[in-house]
């Protein structure tokens, strides 16, 4: 338990730093005006419709240059955690080769993409994270995931003792807001960006002791 909270805290801290910092007064009328201007400035194009501007609580709470109140943040996190769909049959793992392919791809869900089916989407992982060290072109918005499983002492994914970290990772991939209200990481499962099978592949990439990430 202690270990989980430490790791979660580490990731959450990163997300908060990446989010919002400087204070600034917000005039309600300007806020409303700005929202109306945003709505009026966009139009549908392909699969990207204007309904994408309708914010849920997590989005609206994190649309400021300062972080939401603790109370709001906790509500966002609780709702996110409650929304997580656990893998069918308790099967958390797939194939890390597929996982690497998904992690490499930054495609999907833009107005130039033909289909919104998760099968057409990538995970965008390398855009923000170092994962397999062989890939030099990686982003730094999120923490390095090199040796993600190894650093957490995973030598056997079926061991009872590692169940909490496996579950933690599943939640993080499914709905990152569960651990950090204003996380910059997309909610891959919750927003149907990746399907269960694709998330299983990413799980293998990150956690399987045989994955190149854990060598």
């Amino acid at each position, binding site marked *: 338990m202690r270990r989980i909270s430490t790791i979660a805290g580490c990731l959450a801290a990163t997300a908060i730093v990446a989010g919002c910092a400087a204070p600034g007064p917000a005039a309600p009328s300007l806020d409303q005006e*700005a929202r109306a*201007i945003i709505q009026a400035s*966009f139009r549908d194009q392909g699969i*990207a419709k204007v309904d994408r*501007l309708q914010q849920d609580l997590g989005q609206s709470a*994190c649309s400021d240059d300062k972080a939401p109140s603790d109370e709001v943040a906790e509500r966002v996190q609780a709702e996110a955690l409650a929304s997580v769909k656990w893998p069918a049959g308790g099967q958390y793992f797939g194939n890390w080769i597929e996982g690497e392919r998904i992690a490499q791809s930054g495609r999907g869900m833009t*107005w130039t993409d033909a289909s*919104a089916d998760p099968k057409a989407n990538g995970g*965008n992982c390398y855009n923000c994270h170092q994962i397999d060290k062989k890939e030099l072109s990686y982003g730094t918005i999120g923490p390095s995931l090199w040796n993600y499983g190894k650093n957490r002492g995973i030598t056997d994914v079926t061991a009872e003792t590692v169940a909490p970290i496996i579950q933690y990772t599943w939640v993080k991939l499914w709905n990152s807001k569960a651990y950090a209200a204003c996380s910059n990481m997309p909610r891959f499962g919750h927003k149907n960006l990746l399907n269960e099978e694709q998330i299983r592949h990413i799980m293998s990439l990150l956690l399987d002791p045989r994955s190149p990430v854990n060598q």
Partner: protein
Amino acid sequence: MKHLMIAAAALAACGMAAAQTKSAAEGIAEYRKLLEDGNPAELFEAKGESLWKQKRGPKNASLEACDLGKGPGVVKGTFVELPRYFADVGKVMDLETRLVHCMSTLQGLDGAAIAKTRFGQGEMANVTALATWVATESRGMRFNLPQAHPQERRSYEVGKRAFFFRGGTHDFSCAACHAVDGQRIRLQDLPNLTKNPGDGVGFAAWPAYRVSNGEMWGMQLRLNDCYRQQRFPYPGFGSEVTIALGTYMGVNAKGAASIAPAIKR
């Protein structure tokens, strides 16, 4: 004890990652330096200059009487003060929307039709070339957008709110990638656009020649593609959000020297 070991391992891994990053970053720096000498933006700049002086359109007029904010015909220094308020239209305009306005009023071209034209096509390609040339004329000058008019201050505030607005399938805002120093997407450095990110960085680099597709991109297309990658719907050319974001980034960049037109990945 075990926790300590894990923490140490994590730190070690981070340290090694930093070392490797540096060598890749050095390689990229070398690549960018090699590209600097001979920026194809010069081709667009030359085209823009001749378009500015050429008599065109139903009114067979040049753009030499166009007021970009410092009086009719003045080009030098205008780029580092845009977007700004224009009394003749009663609103804030950025460089590209102002150019379309001049093409419409002076040359008699159909401004609304130009705004709907795809980037890189027809008169829209001409707008980009013109913007490239206008930017070149302010090269080395420092950004200093006016904020005296209430509309200019309002534009900044709207832009700031648009910058932090999260939406789309991936919950991204501009701020998700551009509100912190020193971060990257893949190998691309992400300027912190909530402040002056430095000379020739961010707002002070566009229009820029994109080597990935060999196209010249003005700020309107730069923002359009940011929103595409953000998984947002499509922002209209010259829409208020795009101009307000320009005001927000431009005011924040106060004091930054312009290197536009730059060359970019």
